């Protein structure tokens, strides 16, 4: 962050008050649904308002539901695999991209991986479905993971790209001067120094994978992830049990996002 003077307060008191009100309203709008989902999930009665007493019955219920538990396991598996694969590919790509001299190639390599970010999931989902179908590959959690990696790659690339921008490459020269080979340099200098950013990117990938719905919808087949279970049961009617599932998803993704922010901020000097 460059040196910033503290910016002068602009506008009068009325402006500031209405600004706070506005920000408050927007944040309320963004968070209220999430808060309500979590609160209602602790309802002791099966209705959807906030009047019920506190109870964990719905969590007990989904914990005892084999379908939910299996889906949870698959979601966790998908998240971890997505994180590992996208981290490896993203790190490799970023390390390669950063060596390119400025020019057309460099711009291309830095923008093309970002395309899946803006690309509609529906298109990608049906594209994957047709692809698997044409190759005779069955739908499964692995099919989902393969798709999730594509979605996570841009994020990993961005995070690692930013970290490499700040990286002191002269340290690698010093290591080489002291006799280290390429692999040793990577193992003892590059990787340890990139670890915070890499961890952050992995948490981010996990968060994206856990929450992801559309790709999973088209490629999971019978091996449903947790969002798919939630989706399937919505059509059976709304009840706090679903809120429990939703809360679990919610808390996990937000925790992962939080972890991602924290680990990538903890940089070594």
């Amino acid at each position: 962050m460059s040196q910033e003077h503290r910016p002068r307060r602009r506008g009068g008191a009325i402006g500031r008050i209405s600004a706070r009100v506005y920000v408050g309203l927007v944040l309320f709008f963004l968070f209220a649904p999430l808060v309500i989902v979590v609160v209602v999930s602790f309802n002791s009665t099966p209705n959807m308002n906030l009047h019920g007493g506190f109870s964990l019955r719905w969590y007990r219920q989904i914990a005892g539901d084999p379908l939910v538990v299996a889906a949870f396991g698959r979601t966790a598996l998908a998240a971890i695999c997505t994180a590992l694969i996208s981290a490896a590919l993203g790190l490799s790509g970023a390390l390669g991209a950063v060596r390119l001299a400025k020019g057309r190639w460099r711009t291309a390599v830095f923008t093309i991986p970002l395309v899946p970010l803006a690309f509609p999931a529906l298109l990608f989902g049906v594209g994957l479905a047709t692809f698997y179908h044409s190759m005779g590959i069955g739908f499964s959690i692995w099919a989902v993971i393969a798709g999730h990696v594509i979605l996570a790659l841009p994020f990993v690339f961005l995070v690692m790209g930013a970290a490499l921008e700040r990286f002191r490459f002269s340290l690698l020269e010093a290591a080489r001067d002291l006799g280290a080979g390429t692999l040793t340099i990577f193992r003892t200098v590059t990787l340890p120094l990139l670890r915070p950013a890499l961890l952050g990117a992995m948490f981010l990938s996990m968060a994206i994978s856990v929450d992801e719905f559309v790709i999973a919808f088209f490629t999971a087949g019978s091996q449903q992830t947790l969002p798919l279970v939630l989706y399937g049961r919505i059509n059976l009617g709304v009840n706090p049990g679903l809120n429990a599932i939703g809360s679990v998803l919610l808390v996990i993704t937000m925790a992962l996002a939080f972890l991602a922010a924290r680990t990538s901020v903890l940089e070594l000097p």
Partner: protein
Amino acid sequence: MTLTTGVLGRPAEDTLPPLRHRAKARREHASTALLLAPPAVYFVLLFVVPLVVLLVYSFYTYSDFNFTAKLTLENYTQALTSPALRDFYFRTLKIAFAVSIIVVAVSYAFAHILMYVLPQAKRVLYFLVLVSLFGGYLVRIYAWRSMLGRDGVVNSFLISTHIISSPLGSLLNSNFAIVIALLNFLIPLGVLPIFSAMQNISPRLLEAAEDLGASRIRIVRTIVLPLTTRGIRAAFAFCFIATMAEWVTPQLLGGPLNQFVGNQILYEFGETLNWPLGAAIALTLIATVIVILGILFGLLRLVTRS
């Protein structure tokens, strides 16, 4: 004593030692390629190729809940000329535009306040917005579905405060519900690019404008706005593309009269198993979106240039 500027015993030009091949440079190029290869291969294999396959499938022939590899243009004719589909398009477009415009407006105001009105809370507020982004996609849709229902919190609230006497049934299964849920999900996505564009404007620049006598409004209009158009365009494009391809929100929050193009695609893939037609609709959808955005941004460029 006389000095010259000669150099230590320099031999004549034509006896220079030979040029050495640069083994090191070649090694470096090879390792760069090696590093870029795995993600590049993966990207092509699992992103580009599926889209190509989708394109190929869009030319297949359909009959009886099955399709064959016989090539035809039938799907595209249908995709481009079906009147029912046109209705879907108009409906989707209407909402996509509305949502995108609202998101840009709301996000811009939010980002502006963060940067210039409440800068001391900037970091915390931005962090909160980012976190809310990860609050889930399906979970939010589900949340609104339960909140807007007859015995959902919204109705309970309205009744308990005596604004209405009996629950509103029309909150759900409506465009209103769809829009609300989309806004809920897209506003954080809109704040991101606009905020980072604003971050890149040096405060010195604004001080210079102020020093030259510009009022706050003029500064925003003549300096901040032009420099953040890229962020605004990105936010608009994100929202527009996302909404045009939406199908979950209409399915869960809209009624039979509120379905999007995306739902039709889903129908072809899921119900009738007419994958070729679904593929054709999907591809024409993305083409349409690109064309519309292209025209829109082109017009914008013309307008801002004048």
